[in-house]
Every structure is written in structure tokens, then in C-alpha cells.
């Protein structure tokens, strides 16, 4: 009896969570594809089609916003990984012998920016960018996005490197592998999941980010979230187009999440000697 009681509760909670997540997302889908939806029948649109989807590609600044969003996300990802991979390698392998304060410093440093209010960071950067001419530039946005992406990526990758016992590198060197060969044949196969997780976070964070772009890039640099905002809160209201744009954020995010889930399921770092 008691167990069944708990099962009902568990089902209720899970069901509520699913409803809370799926209903808004479902509404976005419906809005994006509804071409006729009268107020007299609020539950289902009368006509569905790809009109709004196609209309996006006919508007030059919307296409630009799409391209901007994906380009900025890609640049942020590449720059973040390029910066953090060598750092994570050093912190996770070389500095491990001297573990203690560097490890703790990284731990603290990597947590802090995730707790920063983005808008406060944006304010600080605004003054800084004005004096250096970085406002309204791709470089400025990429750097701003890296403030959040780098700590997370560093955390994920240092963790991945730390999972590799130092004996693997020693054994490989001992058997004749150069540092480069050790990187390619020992570390990369063992840490690539961490690298991928870091990259996916950087990409999706940059793709979804709104406040920094609004304050530092707008109006010259427009991205999908900015356009969505304008369609629902600006002078020209168009919730259907906003919903279609929303899909361009939602679908890559879902695909990446699915990818991460699958990767992490297969993840197993085997300790030395196991």
C-alpha cells in the first residue's frame, strides 16, 4: 500500500514537471506553424503551414540574425576551446603534482562567473568597450560570451584530464611516445568527451544569450533572441515569427542535449589497474 502511494506521488511530480516543460514548448511549435487560429477555438489552430517559417528567409535582417547567432556561437566555441584546452591540460596533468592552491583557485574562479548577474557584467563591459571601441563588434560579443563559457569549459576539461591517471602518460613516455604522441594517443581518446561537453555548453550558451548582445552589440549585431524580443516587445508585433525564430534556438539545443546525453551514457573512464 505504502509503495503504491509513493508511486502515485512520483508519477504526479514527474507528470507536473513534464507538463511545465512541454506545454510552453508545444505552444511555441503551434504558434510557429499556425496560419489560422481564431479566438473562438482556443485549443487548436484551424490551419497549419510553413508560411511563417518560409517568411523568415525572405527578410534580410532575420536571415542575418540567424547567421549572426550561429556564427557567434561557433566563434565563441572555437575561441573558448582554443584557450581552455591547453590550460586544462596543464592544470589537469602538470599542475596536479603541485595540487593545492592552483586547484582551489580554479575551482573558485570557475564557479564565480556562473553566479554573476549577466546584466551587471554587461554594464561593466559597456564602459570598458566604449573606451576600447569593442561595442557593436563580433569580437566584443565573442569576448563577452567567453567570460561565461571559459570557466565552464575549463571546469569540464580539467575534470576530464584529472580523470586520467598520471601513470598513463608516464607509461606512454616510457614506451617511447613523445609528448605530442601522448596527447594524440593517450589524452585525446580519454578526454574528448569532456572537450565536447565544454564545446556544446559554449555553443548553446552563446546561441541563447540575450542580455550581453542587447547591451553591447545591438543594433549593429542582431541575433535570434534580439529579434524574438523585438517581435514580442517592440514596435512591430508578430508572435508567429517570434515562435519560428524560437525554433531555431530550440532545435539545436535539443539536438545538442540529446548528443550530450548519449555521450555521457557511454562515458567510462577506467582507473589505472582496473
Amino acid at each position, binding site marked *: 500500500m505504502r509503495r503504491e502511494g509513493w508511486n502515485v506521488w512520483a508519477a504526479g511530480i514527474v507528470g507536473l514537471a513534464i507538463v511545465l516543460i512541454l506545454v510552453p514548448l508545444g505552444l511555441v511549435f503551434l504558434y510557429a506553424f499556425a496560419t489560422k487560429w481564431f479566438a473562438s477555438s482556443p485549443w487548436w489552430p484551424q490551419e497549419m503551414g510553413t508560411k511563417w517559417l518560409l517568411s523568415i528567409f525572405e527578410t534580410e535582417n532575420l536571415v542575418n540574425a540567424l547567421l549572426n547567432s550561429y556564427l557567434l556561437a561557433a566563434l565563441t566555441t572555437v575561441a573558448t576551446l582554443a584557450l581552455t584546452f591547453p590550460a586544462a591540460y596543464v592544470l589537469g596533468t602538470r599542475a596536479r603534482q603541485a595540487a593545492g592552491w592552483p586547484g582551489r583557485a580554479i575551482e573558485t574562479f570557475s564557479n564565480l562567473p556562473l553566479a554573476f548577474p549577466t546584466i551587471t557584467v554587461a554594464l561593466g563591459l559597456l564602459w570598458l568597450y566604449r573606451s576600447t571601441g569593442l561595442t557593436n563588434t563580433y569580437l566584443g560579443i565573442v569576448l563577452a560570451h567567453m567570460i561565461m563559457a571559459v570557466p565552464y569549459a575549463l571546469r569540464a576539461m580539467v575534470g576530464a584530464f584529472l580523470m586520467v591517471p598520471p601513470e598513463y602518460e608516464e607509461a606512454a613516455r*616510457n614506451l*617511447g611516445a613523445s609528448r605530442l604522441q601522448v596527447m594524440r594517443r593517450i589524452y585525446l581518446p580519454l578526454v574528448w568527451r569532456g572537450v565536447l561537453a565544454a564545446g556544446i555548453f559554449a555553443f548553446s550558451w552563446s546561441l541563447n544569450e540575450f542580455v550581453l548582445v542587447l547591451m553591447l552589440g545591438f543594433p549593429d549585431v542582431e541575433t535570434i533572441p534580439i529579434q524574438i524580443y523585438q517581435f514580442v516587445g517592440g514596435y512591430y508585433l508578430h508572435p508567429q515569427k517570434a515562435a519560428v525564430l524560437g525554433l531555431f534556438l530550440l532545435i539545436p539545443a535539443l539536438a545538442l542535449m540529446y548528443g550530450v546525453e548519449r555521450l555521457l551514457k557511454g562515458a567510462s573512464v577506467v582507473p589505472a*589497474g582496473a
Partner: protein
Amino acid sequence: MTSITFTGIRTRFGETLANDIPALTIPSGEIVCFVGPSGCGKTTALRTIAGLVMQDSGDIAFGDRVVNDVPPEARNAAMVFQNYALFPHMTVAQNVGFGLSVRGRPAGEIAAKVAEMLEVVQLPQVGERYPRQLSGGQQQRIAVARALATEPDILLFDEPLSNLDAKLREGLRFELRQLLERLGVTTVYVTHDQTEAMVIGDRMLVMNGGRIVQDGRPAEVYRRPVNRFVADFLGASDVIAGTATAPMGERQAVVTPEGLRIEGLGSLAEGAPALACLRPSGVEIAPAGTAGLPAVEILSATDLGDRSEVLLAVGRHRIRAQSGARAGLAAGQQAAMRIDPERCIIVGDEP
């Protein structure tokens, strides 16, 4: 195959002196065991040979060639790690072939060598498996095969059997000894297990506090430890302090302040403060009142099946002895003890 020479090697880890080895030569083809308790510097010495630890001063030479600046990958001194360090993302065959593969050898040659090595360690069927699918003993053999596959000039072993259970360890010990004898490669073997060192090694180096405290053939080191530390390490269970008598040939005696006289192997000056180091196997029980033997009281007797472990009281000293099984000894009995002078070592009582 090559000789190894340490000259003035000193290594510190912070405040700790890890190694201080002024001069040591390991001739080509010799199997040397470094033994000592944990933290004695034996592993540091091994890793210095491998190039995984850089000494603060002094030279390491292979043959005539000083290798201080040679990185580990160019030393051709293959090591078997304590935890084996098999690469988990590679199959057994890829692990064994790794050394040849990074040297850019053709695939056919690598495959042939891998097959040969798996044959040597008697695991020809496991090439396509992953390390985690093997037992500890099998992983250990694969680690040996991987080290041998590169045809190293020097083989290094860092406590390779310490992660295995006692029975397996005993079997592998002899197997490893046979393999090493057959190969004839200069071998440095680190262990904290003196029995293992005696089985494996041609030569035993006992280390303490980063220094080599005794260097000799294993049987000789076992029979004549140079000081209390080595005697303790090699199984002396009880140490009795007193004054040395005048040496007679190889032998002399220690006389305690209470007048107990213990004969053993030693060559200290007469009157020097001395320690008699006893092993249980060197102390026998005799009937109470046997002429010329000190009287003892039996405190406890434990039957271990093939023998009994007996704890004796002689005045204020407690001494462990061995006797045959079912000797009918019981706590509280009076007896006498006979110490085999060949198994009692007398060393100076240094601070």
C-alpha cells in the same frame, strides 16, 4: 643490454631527501632488487633511471653514456608499473604494440611481435580484449609483455606484484624470475617484500631514508644484516641490547646487564654497545633445566598447523620462538631456550 651507473645522485622533494646515492654500478645483465619500507627512496631511484624523476644533482649513465638530458621516451628503459597502467581505451594487442607503434614500425612487424610477446607471457588468446576484461594477474602479465615488446636495454619493475593476492604473487614471483633469467636484460626491481627480493634478485640493495644501507647477495644480506634497521626489515622479531664480548672468528656474544648471554654472528669490538637480533626460527624451546640454557617462562603458544609460535619471557625480555606443531606447550610452563648462533645477528647499538 647495458650497465647503469649512479654518480653523486641527490634528489629532494621539498624538505625530504628522497635519494642520496653517491656511487652505484649495476653491471650489464644483473637483476638488482631495491628493497625497503615505503618512503625509503627505492621508487625514486627507479624513476630516476626511467627519466620520470629528474635528480637535483649527479649523473645517471647507461654504459658510458650520461643520460641526464635524455627524455624518458629515448632511454629505452621499459617499466612495469605497480598498477600496470594499461591504457583502458586500447585492446591488449594495442597496448602491447604501443611501443613499436609510436616508433613507426610497420603493422605486420608489430602484429608479429605482439603475438610473440603474448606467447611469452602465456596469454596468446587475449589480444582483442580490453584490459578491464582481464584479471589482475593477467593484467600484470600484459604489463610485462608491453614492456618487453620494445626490446628494452633495461627493464624496470615498480612493485609489480603488490596488487595481487598472496597465492598468485608467490607463483608469479618464480615465473618472473625464470623469465628474467632467460632474457638476461639488466633489471632493476623495486619491492618492499624481502622474500620477493630474495627470489627475484641476484643482488639486493636495502634502502632507508634515501640511502643504500646494505648492498649484497640476497642470502648474504639476510644472514648478515649490517645494522638494526636491515635486521628489522629482514624479519628480526626481537632485539636484545647489551655489551659485546670479544669476537671469536665470525662469532661473539651479547651480555645483557642482567647477565643473559646470547651468542650470534658479529664482529664488534669487545665492550661495544651491541644488539642481538633474533628471528623466531632461530629460537628453540628446550626442556626446563637443560644445562647451560637460560630458563624461560612460556607466555603463550599458538598452534599454526605446521608449527607453533611461542612467546617467551626471559627476565624483562619478551622473545618469540618457534617449535614443532603439537609440542604440547602451554602458557605458564617453565622451559629453557636455545638460540642458534647462526641465526642470531649481532649489530652495533647505534642511535
